[in-house]
C-alpha cells in the first residue's frame, strides 16, 4: 500500500516527529536543526519581511510545482524591494491521504529552489487536516532579506516620460496552468527566481524607480496599481508586448487577455528614460531577460492606464474586474 500522510502525522506525537524528520532530512541546516520555537537569526541592517500562501492546482505543473513556487514566489517578493533574500519559513497544511512520495518530491523541489536562489529554510510548521478540508497541500511562507545601500528605490520620483520595462514574455504561468487544468499540453510556467537578475541590476543603475513581480492579476493590474499609487497615467503599446506564440494562440482560444494572466518569473519596472539602455543591455545578456522590452511610458497628462492597440486606437486597460482564473498560485 502506498505510504500516505494520516491525521496522526499532525497530532504532535510519534508520527509528527517522523514527518518533521523527513523535512529535516531534506531541508536541514544549522538553524533549522536547532528545532527551537523560533529561529534566531544573525542579521543587521535594513530588513525586508514578506509573507505569502500557495494553493496552486495542479500541485505539479509544467515548469515547476507548489514547492519551487513557494520558494521563488517569496524570493521574488523580497527581491522586488531590493532585498537580498536570506531566510524562509515554510508552513505546510496537508490534507490527510496526501502521499509521502508527492510530499518528498515537493521537499526536493524546495531544496533545489532554495539552493538556486541562495536562501535557507530556518523555521516551519506542519498541520494535517481531514480529508476534504484541503486540496492536497497548501504552503504558507515568510521571507526575510536585507537591503544593501543603494538598492532601495522607494524614494525615487516617477515622472513624465519614464519607461515601463518587462524582462520577457507575458502571461506564461497563468495561461500554462490554465491549459494544464484543461488537459492541454502547451507551453510552460515562467517560474524563476529573480534575485540574481534584479539585485545586480539595481547596483548597475539608479534609474529604476519601481519594481513589482506581476503575479496574480498580471501586468495590467500592476500598471493600474502604479497609476493609482503615484497619480500618473501609463500608455502601453500592444505592438511591443513580448508574447510567445503559444501564449497568443491559447489566450485567444480561452478568451483570456495575457495582460491579466499571472507571471512567476517576471519583473515590471519603471525606469528613467535616460537609463533605459543600460537596463535593457543588462537584461538582454541574461537568460531570464533576453526578451526584455520597453512596453509603455508614463504620462502625466492623464491618470489612467491606456492600451495603444495594433491599429493605433486607444482604450482603457483597467484592473481585473472578474474572476477569470482558477487557483494558479
Amino acid at each position, binding site marked *: 500500500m502506498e505510504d500516505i500522510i494520516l491525521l496522526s502525522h499532525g497530532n504532535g506525537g510519534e508520527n509528527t516527529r517522523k514527518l518533521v524528520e523527513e523535512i529535516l532530512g531534506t531541508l536541514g541546516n544549522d538553524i533549522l536543526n536547532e528545532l527551537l520555537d523560533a529561529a534566531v537569526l544573525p542579521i543587521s541592517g535594513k530588513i525586508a519581511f514578506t509573507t505569502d500562501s500557495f494553493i496552486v492546482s495542479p500541485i505539479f505543473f509544467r515548469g515547476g510545482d507548489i514547492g519551487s513556487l513557494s520558494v521563488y514566489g517569496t524570493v521574488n517578493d523580497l527581491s522586488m524591494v531590493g532585498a537580498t533574500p536570506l531566510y524562509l519559513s515554510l508552513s505546510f497544511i496537508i490534507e490527510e491521504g496526501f502521499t509521502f512520495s508527492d510530499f518528498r518530491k515537493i521537499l526536493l523541489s524546495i531544496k533545489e529552489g532554495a539552493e538556486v536562489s541562495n536562501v535557507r529554510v530556518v523555521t516551519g510548521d506542519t498541520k494535517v487536516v481531514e480529508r476534504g478540508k484541503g486540496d492536497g497541500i497548501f504552503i504558507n511562507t515568510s521571507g526575510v532579506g536585507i537591503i544593501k545601500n543603494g538598492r532601495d528605490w522607494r524614494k525615487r520620483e516617477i515622472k513624465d516620460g519614464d519607461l515601463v520595462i518587462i524582462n520577457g514574455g507575458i502571461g506564461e504561468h497563468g495561461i500554462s496552468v490554465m491549459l494544464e487544468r*484543461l488537459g492541454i499540453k502547451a507551453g510552460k510556467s515562467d517560474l524563476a527566481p529573480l534575485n540574481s537578475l534584479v539585485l545586480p541590476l539595481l547596483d548597475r543603475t539608479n534609474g529604476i524607480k519601481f519594481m513589482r513581480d506581476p503575479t496574480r492579476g498580471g501586468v495590467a493590474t500592476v500598471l493600474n496599481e502604479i497609476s493609482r499609487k503615484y497619480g500618473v497615467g501609463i500608455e502601453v503599446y500592444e505592438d511591443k508586448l513580448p508574447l510567445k506564440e503559444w501564449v497568443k494562440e491559447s489566450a485567444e482560444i480561452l*478568451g483570456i487577455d495575457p495582460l491579466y494572466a499571472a507571471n512567476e518569473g517576471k519583473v515590471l519596472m519603471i525606469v528613467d528614460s535616460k537609463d533605459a539602455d543600460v537596463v535593457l543591455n543588462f537584461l538582454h545578456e541574461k537568460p531570464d531577460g533576453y526578451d526584455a522590452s520597453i512596453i509603455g511610458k508614463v504620462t502625466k497628462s492623464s491618470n*489612467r492606464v491606456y492600451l495603444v*492597440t*495594433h*491599429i*493605433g*486606437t*486607444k*482604450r*482603457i486597460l*483597467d484592473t481585473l*474586474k*472578474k474572476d477569470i482564473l482558477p487557483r494558479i498560485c
Partner: protein
Amino acid sequence: MDREKVLDLGKRINTVSKKEINLMEFCGTHTHEIFRFGLRDILPQNIHLLSGPGCPVCVTAQEDIDYIITLARIFPIGVITFGDILNVPGSEGSLNHLRAEGKDVRVVYSPLDSLKIAKKNPQKQFLFVGVGFETTVPLVAYTLLMARKERINNLLFLSLHKLTPPAMRAILEMGEVKVDGIIGPGHVSTIIGRKGWGSIFNDYKIPFVIAGFEPEDIMLGILKLIEMVEENRPQLLNAYRRSVREEGNPHALEMINRVFSVSGDIWRGLGYIEDSGLKLNETFSEFDVKRVYPIKFKKYENKGCRCGEVLRGVLKPTECPLYGKVCNPQTPMGPCMVSSEGTCAAYYQYGEN
C-alpha cells in the same frame, strides 16, 4: 490582424459614409471586439453602433436562474454549467452564492465534461444547464446523444438555448429603435448559414451583412452596410465566407433536430418570443429536468436594472441609473454586466465609466 487593411477600410468608410445611421451588431462578441480593438476611434461620428441581444447569458430569464437555485436548495443535485452563468443574479442570489452555501456547483468548458462528472459519481444526480445560441447547441445535443448511448442515468439537462433570428425579428417588429443595418453574427451563421436569415431579410428589406470577428472582418462588414445604406440598395450579404456557407452546417443542424424541438421562450428584456427556444424532444424527455422536477417557486420582479432596454438597443449602458454606481462586474445587478459578451460589461471594461 492586418493593420494596414483595417486602417484602409477605416478610410474608405469615412469617404463613403454621409448619412447619420444606426447599425446594430446582434452579437455580443462583436460588441466586445469593437471595444477591444478601439474600432469606434476610427469610425466617423455619424455612424452609431447599437448592441443587440446577442449574449446568451444576458438574455437568460431571471426565473430560469431562480428555478435552478430553488431546485438545488431542495434536492441534493449537482449543477454543472459554463462559467459566466455563475454570476447572473437571480431573485435570491446567484449560482456563486449557491456554491458558497456548500451546494455542488461545477464549471466546465465543454458540455462533454458533464458526462465524465456523472460517470465518476454514479451515486449522485447532476444537472447540466445548457446556455447558448445555435453555436453552442450542437455540442450539447451531442452530449445528450452520448448520455443516451452510454446509458448515463444520473445526468439531467435544462435547455436555456435560444434561437437568434426570432429575436432579431422581434427587435425589428417592436420598432423602438431605428436600425439602418445589421451586422450579422458570424458564429451563429456558421451553423444556420446565410439562408437562416433569408425570411427576415425578405420581410424587412434591411441591409444585413454577416461578419467575422477579426478587426478587418468587422470593418469590412461595416463598409458593406454603409455602401448599401448610402445607395439605398439593401442586400443579405455573407462577408465571412471563410467560415459561413449558404446552407450553414447541415450536420450540426441535423444533430440539433434529433435532440431538440423549437418552442416559445422567454428572453430577458424581450419577453416571450414565439419559436425562439429549444426544448428537449419527447424522445429525450427522461433527461428533461423540468419533467423530473416540476417545482413551483415565487416569481420576483427585478427592480431598477434596465438590461432589457440595453438588450433591445434602446438604452446605452451609461444611461442606466445603476451603471457604474451600484452595478459593476464585481456586483452585477443584471446579466448585461455579467457576461464578457454583455454590453454593459464591455462598456465598463473598456472605460466608458
